């Protein structure tokens, strides 16, 4: 009797203390849901800011000639747009999803290390401040591109150092977050949930977390060598002292290519969750999906030099990296086929999350095909550093990663807020985003094929028409995201009451708890059969 009372009292007591309020609720939060919410808002803020930088880029490129920004400022805009979108918007958004959904999906009461979780979020703030403040130091923000190739990045001012420190901090945050996610997944699954019964989203995040732990220290190494070259007289990347500028590229892309998959694997996880729900049919080829994800992750470490085909590698190196890169399209193809087979003979409805998911499958595949075109080395010689590459990576990063995130937000926001979002406005947001995205980025395939280099503030007149189309599309794409903000805020403030299950075809532990999900869930582990 006494034991039962004690344990009951403990649980109850825990709940009583579990409702901090005011600012300190957020600053000191150890709650995976609150931290997840903060990650998502941080990411959205950065998304809008880096999007505003992109608007300035497209404004300058609206027509030939220099009208609005000087070339040195233009380079700052492209550099910070890339850095902030990758490290400030896409990556934290996925960590936000992991925080919210991983414990709910595996039936855990919280993350394994709640205080580390708090730390990994709050590390983002000084990093963001360093990046944003670098616009205001003498010489302006970093202007050597997000890839920061030396010797160009050895030339820049203190803003380069600020960006390097920001990335170091973000790296620590990512590693800490990944350790937390891996530990949570391995140790806190509900009884009965074997690894091969885990939801696909959890699987993709598990693999992503390993990629992060393997890749981020490599970036830290490259950046540390860069900073010692800049200030302490080392010559890692300076040929005059026995170093090699291309060494940086090798080390950077050894991080950079897994990074690409860090930004897309969780998106695959979101798609693999949304599509079965709205097809009302189980995910096709669960096991092969797991194996394909793992195969992509392993291959991602042996393809890095395809970013460097024009550096003049020996022919053996060129051939190896071409073949390994082409090979990646096999497991990626398997994933696409599995999604299609999941839709096949389903009973589909097309609410906003499903619209996003279907569009992502289609547009990501276009990005995959342009990736395959770039993988063919002789063709890449023509396309390297042109707008074709810009088109390619926006098809995988915007219509792959960012639109999956949007779909994921529509899918889970009823669980987060307890309200249904406005379906009409959601659909408007979807169509505006999808159309504007294609108007912006599809013409870039053509400007790239015709030879327009990326990262230039001004261009010859043959590219004028397509650039104007791209700019108009970009302005529409940017404005459409304000509608997204409005839909999200409207949903937080009110709307139709969401049921526990929310979606007719939804399966999984997160749909067994009330909507909104209470502050503490699964204090008693559920049993998975």
């Amino acid at each position, binding site marked *: 009797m006494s034991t039962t009372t004690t344990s009951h009292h403990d649980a109850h007591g825990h709940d009583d203390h579990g409702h901090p309020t005011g600012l300190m609720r957020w600053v000191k939060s150890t709650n995976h849901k609150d931290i997840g919410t903060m990650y998502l808002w941080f990411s959205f803020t950065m998304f809008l800011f880096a999007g505003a930088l992109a608007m300035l880029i497209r404004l300058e490129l609206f027509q030939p000639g220099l009208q609005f920004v000087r070339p040195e400022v233009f380079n700052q805009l492209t550099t910070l747009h890339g850095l902030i979108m990758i490290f400030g918007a896409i990556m934290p958004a996925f960590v936000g999803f992991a925080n919210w959904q991983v414990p709910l999906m595996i039936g855990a009461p919280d993350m394994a290390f709640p205080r580390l979780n708090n730390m990994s979020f709050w590390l983002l703030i000084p990093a963001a401040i360093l990046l944003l403040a670098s616009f205001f130091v003498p010489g302006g923000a970093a202007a050597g591109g997000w890839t920061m190739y030396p010797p160009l990045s050895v030339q820049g001012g203190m803003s380069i150092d600020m960006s390097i420190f920001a990335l170091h901090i973000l790296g620590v945050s990512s590693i800490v977050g990944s350790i937390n996610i891996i530990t949570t997944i391995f140790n806190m699954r509900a009884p009965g949930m074997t690894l091969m019964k885990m939801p696909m989203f959890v699987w993709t995040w598990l693999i992503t977390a390993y990629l992060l732990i393997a890749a981020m220290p490599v970036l830290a190494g490259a950046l540390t060598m860069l900073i010692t070259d800049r200030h302490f007289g080392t010559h890692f990347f300076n040929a005059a002292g026995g170093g090699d500028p291309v060494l940086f590229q090798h080390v950077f892309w050894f991080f950079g290519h897994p990074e690409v998959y860090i930004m897309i694997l969780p998106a695959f996880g979101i798609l693999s969750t949304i599509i079965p729900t709205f097809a009302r049919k189980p*995910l096709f*080829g669960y096991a092969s999906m797991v194996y394909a994800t793992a195969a992509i992750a392993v291959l991602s470490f042996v393809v890095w030099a395809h970013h460097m085909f024009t550096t*003049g590698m020996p022919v053996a190196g060129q051939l190896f990296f071409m073949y390994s890169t082409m090979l990646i399209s096999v497991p990626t193809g398997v994933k696409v086929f599995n999604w299609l087979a999941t839709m096949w003979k389903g009973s589909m409805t097309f609410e906003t999350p499903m619209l996003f998911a279907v569009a992502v499958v289609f547009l990501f595949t276009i990005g995959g095909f342009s990736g395959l075109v770039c993988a063919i080395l002789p063709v890449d010689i023509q396309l390297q550093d042109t707008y074709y590459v810009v088109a390619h990576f926006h098809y995988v990063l915007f219509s792959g990663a960012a639109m999956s995130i949007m779909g994921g937000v529509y899918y889970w926001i009823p669980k987060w807020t307890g309200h249904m979002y406005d379906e009409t406005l959601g659909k408007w947001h979807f169509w505006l985003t999808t159309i504007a995205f294609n108007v912006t980025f599809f013409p870039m395939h053509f400007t790239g094929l015709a030879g327009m280099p990326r990262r230039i503030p001004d261009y010859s007149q043959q590219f004028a028409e397509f650039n104007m189309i791209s700019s108009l599309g970009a302005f529409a794409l940017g404005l459409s995201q304000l509608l997204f903000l409005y839909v999200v805020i409207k949903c937080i403030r009110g709307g139709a009451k969401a049921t526990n299950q929310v979606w007719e075809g939804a399966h999984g532990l997160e749909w067994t708890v009330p909507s909104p999900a209470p502050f503490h869930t699964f204090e008693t582990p559920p049993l998975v059969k």
Partner: protein
Amino acid sequence: MNKKAIFFISMMLLMATGNAQAAYELNLHAPVTEIARQIYDLHMLIVYVCLGILVIVFGVMFYSIYAHRKSVGHQAAQFHEHHVLEIIWTIIPAVILIAMAVPATKTILAMKDTTAADMTVKVIGHQWKWEYDYVDQNVHFISNLSTTQDQIDGKSEKGENYLLEVDNPMVVPVGKKIRVLLTAEDVIHSWSVPSFGVKQDAIPGFIKETWFRADKEGTYRGQCSELCGKAHGFMPIVVEAVSDEKYAAWIEAKNAEAAKGDAGADKEWTKEDLVANGKTVYEKNCAVCHQANGAGLPPAFPAMTGSKIALGAIWGADGKYAKDSHVDRLLNGKGVMPAWKAQLNDVEIASVITYERQALGNAATVDPIVQPAQIKAAR
């Protein structure tokens, strides 16, 4: 979604028809070398294969979206595995990839073969211009963007080859195998001529090589293809492929030009002539950083106006130029400032120094002018 697919397919078909290229540039440049032709064909092959796969795979998806909807009363099946199917759709893409890899490999091997070249040209990337050195012909020159700043700023009409024109193009004989050796002085640049199917990074401290054989006379244009700082978009590459006779005449003219430049070093120049000549040199080489009015872009690029170096003494007690003096900085450079020793001749260096000391708001009283003969002696 259907509309988007139709749009995509029609754009792709448009790309395949040559006559659409007149209004909108839709495809790779018309190839004029064997390698560029192979690349062009390889690209078209891959585009058609991808397009075929796209139509089949997404044909299935759109059919499914049309037929397997809840609103038309379709009941969900519950299958979730089919091993044969899964093996098939792993193997078929692998086979297609191997079929693509074979021609690609052949082209790569051909691209890498720089042996048996008819001549060699050394190309050096600088922030922000290209330097060409015809090793065997003793011809050497700098190639700068020739589009005017007024065109860029919209103060005058943009020309036909806006941003794709230079003062000194690279000239090569048509039909000859030209081996290009590439390096850079400061940061990484990339030398690219799409019509030749050539793009090779120029990396400081390393020499990389590539080659081309143009089989049609003409002027071919490209741009620097690796971010190299603020004027990255303003350092085009222009190659003229000409007949053997025209090429020989060009070499002769270049040699005469160089001889004339050397001769100027021995005569005494007036201040006015030096300043006038220096203005041209300054605007071509220096204004990109230090600005045409001498205001610079601090802190990266210091102002000329009022500069201690431009107003201070040049010559030490021993008659040689002092360390960190105006001449020292021009000849040897420092940090971001390049060394101009090899790029400018004596007259040009003396002129630009005099211009910087006597114009741009400066009027140096110590060592007011510098003679080309002094530079010749100081080298």
